[in-house]
């Protein structure tokens, strides 16, 4: 596997040192403890998967740094609003236990009720969440990969500091999951995923989620799901090496990536400043 591609600061140095000074595990731990103290409530849409969460400005910085959710622009006010995806809201609720979720009606949901709600909104939620939490628990940053034709993309740290390394495709198998219309069962699908990930310079990572149980009715089933990791890479005989991109005659499309970059770049410097402040604070805390 090739190593991480760190982005560069204005002075030309890359961000690996900054990332090393602020490990993702510390950021997530600080986010978790801050949210636990205030017990914020996320409102989930009745028939959908997305949830909206209101937090304090300091918590908003932490959510941004841990790369959870999408900041919702608003005119101002005490609270900052974030839109969370299905896997994100369940991770904050079930894994980190720092957010409470309720319906529009105000009715608070238990973890089991939230699981049912998300499973009925999306049939593939169990395996998608297992893959998401598997990567998050290893402190990888996980975002949606749909714009690249995959399920997720995984970053070694915040997207402002590093390019994502992996385009992740989730493949279900086993008693309960195997009946689903899974990915990568035909060559056209596999080679399409390989080409799509290669054209944006990411390695295709396949997470196969296997289950030997038949019961997916509660989050307890997560312990019975197993994640198998495998990369698919193209080998170029002419150059005697692995390559993420196909040796194609067509220029890879940079339009997609450019657009994403533009919309997020305004937030990047805010995040980087935030990291610099955070790492200084961490050093301050360690010394005194």
């Amino acid at each position, binding site marked *: 596997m090739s190593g991480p591609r760190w982005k560069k600061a204005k002075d030309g140095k890359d961000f690996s040192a900054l990332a090393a000074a602020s490990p993702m595990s510390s950021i997530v731990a600080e986010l978790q403890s801050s949210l636990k103290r205030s017990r914020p409530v996320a409102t989930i849409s009745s028939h959908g998967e997305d949830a909206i969460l209101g937090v304090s400005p300091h918590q908003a910085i932490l959510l941004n740094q841990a790369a959870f959710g999408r900041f919702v622009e608003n005119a101002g006010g005490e609270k900052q609003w974030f839109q969370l995806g299905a896997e994100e809201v369940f991770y904050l609720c079930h894994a980190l236990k720092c957010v409470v979720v309720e319906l529009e009606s105000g009715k608070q949901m238990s973890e089991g009720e939230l699981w049912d709600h998300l499973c009925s909104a999306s049939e593939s939620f169990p395996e998608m969440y297992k893959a998401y939490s598997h990567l998050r628990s290893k402190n990888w940053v996980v975002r949606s990969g749909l714009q690249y034709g995959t399920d997720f993309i*995984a970053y070694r740290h915040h997207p402002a500091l590093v390019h994502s390394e992996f385009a992740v495709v989730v493949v279900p198998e086993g008693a309960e999951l195997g009946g689903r219309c899974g990915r990568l069962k035909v060559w056209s699908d596999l080679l399409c995923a390989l080409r799509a990930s290669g054209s944006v310079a990411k390695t295709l990572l396949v997470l196969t989620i296997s289950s030997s149980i038949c019961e997916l009715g509660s989050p307890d089933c997560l312990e019975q799901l197993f994640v198998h*990791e495998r990369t*698919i*890479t*193209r*080998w*170029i005989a*002419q150059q005697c090496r692995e390559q993420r991109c196909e040796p194609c005659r067509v220029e890879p499309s940079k339009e997609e990536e450019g657009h994403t970059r533009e919309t997020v770049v305004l937030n990047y410097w805010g995040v980087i400043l935030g990291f610099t402040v955070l790492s200084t604070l961490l050093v301050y805390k360690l010394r005194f």
Partner: protein
Amino acid sequence: MIIDQPSQDSLQESQLSSCGNVASRARWVEDAGEAEVLDSKGKLWLTTGVTRGGKLYYNVEEIGFLAERGALVLLDDEDETIGLEEIYKKIAGGNYGCSWDAFQAYKHLKVLGYIVGRYGVPWTVKHSGTCEVTDSPKSMADTERCSDRANGACNDITKFLKQMHIDGIYPSFEVHLPNSKFKKSCPGVPTFLLCLLRDKPPSRDELETVENKFEGIPLKFCQFDNGRISFLSFDNVTLPSLP
């Protein structure tokens, strides 16, 4: 088939040019399913064919590759030339241990200078019938094959036909990087083993089964699409836990 420019140090290029446009000759032996080389021009034999009891033999894919390049003339029992069309039929028929797809893969790598041999077939065997200890990967069939050395390629064919009925994936070729110092008497461990894939991508079970059989040697997989070959790796990885 798309073939990019061969690598600069392509061994085949130098070996073929050293032939000086004079082709080697080999006689087809139907019972053995391969050709016995009568006279060998140039240095091709250093990385092509197997040596048994002091004689050099080419299998069908080697014959096809060399004949296409004008480096080999294949003769029948009556010393009549067997043309390329007949050679292609032998390959496409699949009765001599090689399929048309396997031939495409073999050729693609040979043109680029890689050293390619059929998986599990020793590069050289001594005349006495005792099996020379080679560095080819261990397999249960090795000892069995040694005692049947006299039957030449036929055992390879039997094994190949058996493989076609084996569930799962099995290597077709062992591949070494281009190497001017390659010796058949001591080939070393292959750089990778090449498995040919069929009409659909391999399942997790199939991959794990073949990986467990050939622990330690990298596996590459080959997929065909109308003459275009893709070489793929399906590596079992463990993503690190980050700080």
